[in-house]
């Protein structure tokens, strides 16, 4: 009432932190219990939005990994391996329900530890986490029907290393199918985002999951390397950078370990002149600014048909002006914090290279908070295939805009990358969508939408975006001896 007329300023609407209790320090979750490290160290996990220390966590050493793998092996040989698949499934249903029941707690913790907006952790990450467990719970006693032959067998102990962009969701993508197929797991969450995985460990306890079925070892790259190279694991599943993915492919060469890798991307989001423009603009925004662009399948290359370039860019810039950047715990925030100082430096470096190579940088007027790691939503115009910002994964809120003239040219440019994770196509013409989808060398093609995920829908990359699929019937293959 005291405001000037016509100014509708949203008051702060912070989500309550009280819903989650963060311990001051965490051990490792091995064989059903939190234990102290044998030969590791501790490190701090911070909130990237405020640089506040949230907790002290353990960097597991080689002896810890030995112990975790042994616990997983014992559970595989014992209770879990002998359990009727139906009962295994019922455990997963139970976990899914607890995840739903404690959803808000998980969402708040994810936002604190990761820096992503609470709206996304609440409405996207955590519901998908529960859905993933629910979906794979149902597969546990239906593996005979999954098209992988009669009575397919599990692999054994799975070593799983996941990234920081969707901490709990990536855990769900890994753990749910592994357990449904009858494996046991040792999972390492990312160094900067361990807390929801540790809360998940508590949920395993609450569900009375047998000890050793799920083991959570925190740590950084070295911990991950030791885990992946451990001779006691039968399966390696990794989501992260293409660089590390190649290292894993080399280190597992000559072993019997089954490997699946979900790596980087540089997806083209292709907008034709007959696209539903308003929704295409939403899709472009969702494609690159969802989760601060910390998305391996992000639509980081916008390919716009040249005859609608001005219209699309005008609409896009207008829309970027309405994005709300700031406190991730505020329910109205669209863009949260960059996950770490290290990542912020990487984003800045590549953006600076964009400037240096002559592309034109644009961001909406946007005040960045004083503390924490922030980067404004940014787009580069005048980008060509020869620019590094059109070729390298930035993994941040930075969009490179290119143009094309014909469908064939769009396909050529979209495919002209070592990556092949995803692509987007925007047009009102159905046959063109399918023609494009037929030619795009990418594991997921979104048509008139972007960044959609569902446990029933397989996801994974072509070429240097990795191999193996996660989701649905196809996702079982990664965890079965087939």
């Amino acid at each position, binding site marked *: 009432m005291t*405001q000037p007329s*016509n100014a509708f300023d949203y008051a702060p609407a912070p989500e309550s932190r009280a819903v989650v209790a963060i311990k001051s320090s965490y051990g490792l979750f091995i064989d059903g219990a939190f234990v102290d490290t044998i030969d590791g160290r501790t490190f701090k996990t911070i909130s990237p939005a405020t640089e506040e220390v949230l907790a002290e966590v353990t960097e597991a050493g080689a002896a810890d990994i030995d112990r975790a793998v042994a616990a997983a092996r014992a559970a595989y040989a014992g209770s879990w391996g002998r359990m009727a698949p139906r009962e295994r499934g019922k455990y997963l249903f139970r976990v899914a329900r607890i995840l739903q029941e404690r959803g808000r707690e998980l969402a708040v913790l994810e936002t604190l530890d990761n820096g992503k907006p609470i709206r996304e952790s609440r409405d996207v990450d955590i519901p998908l986490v529960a859905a993933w467990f629910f979906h794979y719970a149902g597969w546990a006693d239906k593996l005979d029907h999954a098209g992988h032959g009669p009575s397919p067998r599990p692999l054994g102990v799975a070593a799983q290393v996941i990234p920081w962009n969707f901490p709990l969701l990536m855990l769900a993508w890994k753990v749910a199918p592994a357990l449904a197929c009858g494996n046991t797991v040792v999972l390492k969450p990312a160094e900067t985002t361990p807390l929801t995985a540790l809360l998940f460990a508590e949920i395993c306890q609450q569900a009375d999951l047998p000890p050793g079925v799920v083991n959570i070892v925190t740590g950084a790259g070295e911990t991950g390397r030791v885990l992946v190279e451990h001779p006691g694991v039968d399966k390696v599943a990794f989501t992260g950078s293409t660089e590390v993915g190649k290292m894993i492919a080399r280190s597992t060469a000559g072993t019997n370990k089954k490997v699946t890798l979900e790596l980087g991307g540089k997806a083209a989001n292709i907008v034709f002149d007959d696209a539903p423009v308003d929704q295409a603009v939403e899709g472009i925004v969702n494609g690159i600014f969802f989760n601060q662009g910390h998305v391996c399948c992000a639509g980081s290359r916008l390919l716009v048909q040249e005859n609608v370039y*001005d219209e699309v860019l005008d609409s896009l810039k207008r829309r970027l002006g309405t994005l709300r950047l700031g406190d991730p715990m505020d329910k109205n925030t669209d863009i949260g914090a960059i996950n770490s100082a290290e990542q912020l430096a990487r984003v800045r470096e590549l953006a600076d290279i964009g400037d240096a190579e002559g592309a034109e940088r644009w961001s909406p007027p946007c005040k960045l908070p004083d503390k924490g790691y922030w980067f404004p939503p940014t787009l580069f115009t005048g980008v060509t295939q020869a620019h590094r910002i059109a070729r390298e994964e930035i993994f941040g809120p930075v969009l490179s805009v290119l143009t094309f003239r014909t469908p064939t040219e769009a396909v050529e440019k979209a495919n002209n990358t070592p990556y092949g994770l995803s692509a987007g196509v925007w047009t009102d013409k159905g046959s063109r969508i399918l023609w494009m989808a037929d030619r795009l060398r990418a594991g997921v093609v979104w048509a008139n939408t972007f960044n959609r995920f569902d446990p029933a829908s397989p996801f994974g990359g072509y070429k240097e975006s990795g191999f193996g699929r996660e989701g649905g019937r196809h996702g079982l293959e990664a965890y079965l001896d087939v």
Partner: protein
Amino acid sequence: MTTRHDLADVTRSEASLRRFLHGLAGVDQVGADARAAMLSTRSIKTSAKAYAIDLAISMIDLTTLEGQDTPGKVRALCAKAMRPDPTDSSTPQVAAICVYSDMVATAAAELKGRGVHLASVATAFPSGRASLPVKLTDTRDAVAAGADEIDMVIDRGAFLAGNLMRVHDEIVAVKAACGSAHLKVILETGELATYDNVRRASWLAMLAGADFIKTSTGKIAPAATLPVTLVMLEAVRDFRAATGRQVGVKPAGGIRTTKDAIKYLVLVNETVGPDWLSPDWFRLGASSVLNDLLMQRTKMTTGRYGGPDYVTLD
């Protein structure tokens, strides 16, 4: 995209009008629904909520459109419009009263000089199934009786049958009959069925001279929805960019709670911006929502929840 110079020829013929409307960018239903749903998660608290409640009250077209309407009912509604909360003089007035044309004279006598607009539905509301002379007479009667806003319905049958010029010309004729009264054109989006149709009908109405485009009569389900209103807001935004002329938007029907009303304000704020955040450019066609807004307003000042016994009926 549309530019100013090519609009002059659009309404020259059925063919050119059709070509133009069907050349507008399509609306992807799933995407539009998702955008509206995302905006409806906005959390409007404390000072922003207080602001939004008063703004929403000031945008209401307080409506009674029933066969059982009587002068007594209309007078009561007028009293409510002018003093929504008799216990709190800081409460804003609503934007307008909306009644059938035969009730306009009654309402006009009540509202005279009190700053509340008087809207009348016209043109064989709600079906629009009458001859043009009947519709024009209906309109002129309402204006003559004191209405300064006319809420007309388009001929949905003609629109769906592809007789776009007929719809256009009828709006032009009604606009002429309005004189100085503002014309709100009701698209009855529930009968148009697709968002593509909503976008085309929005442009058609604006090309024909509408001052406002309005979603619904309230007599057909679904009435106003967030995604339909989103599509119409995008249309007025694009129309202003193309022509320089600003057109208002009025969702009507189905808006019952404060939460509903605030969702519409958020939609306006983030789709077309503050230029539309005033009763001159955005209205809420509703009746029961007023009491909910008043109860929420009281809650904000007293800190406790109220009940229907503490707001006035009509």
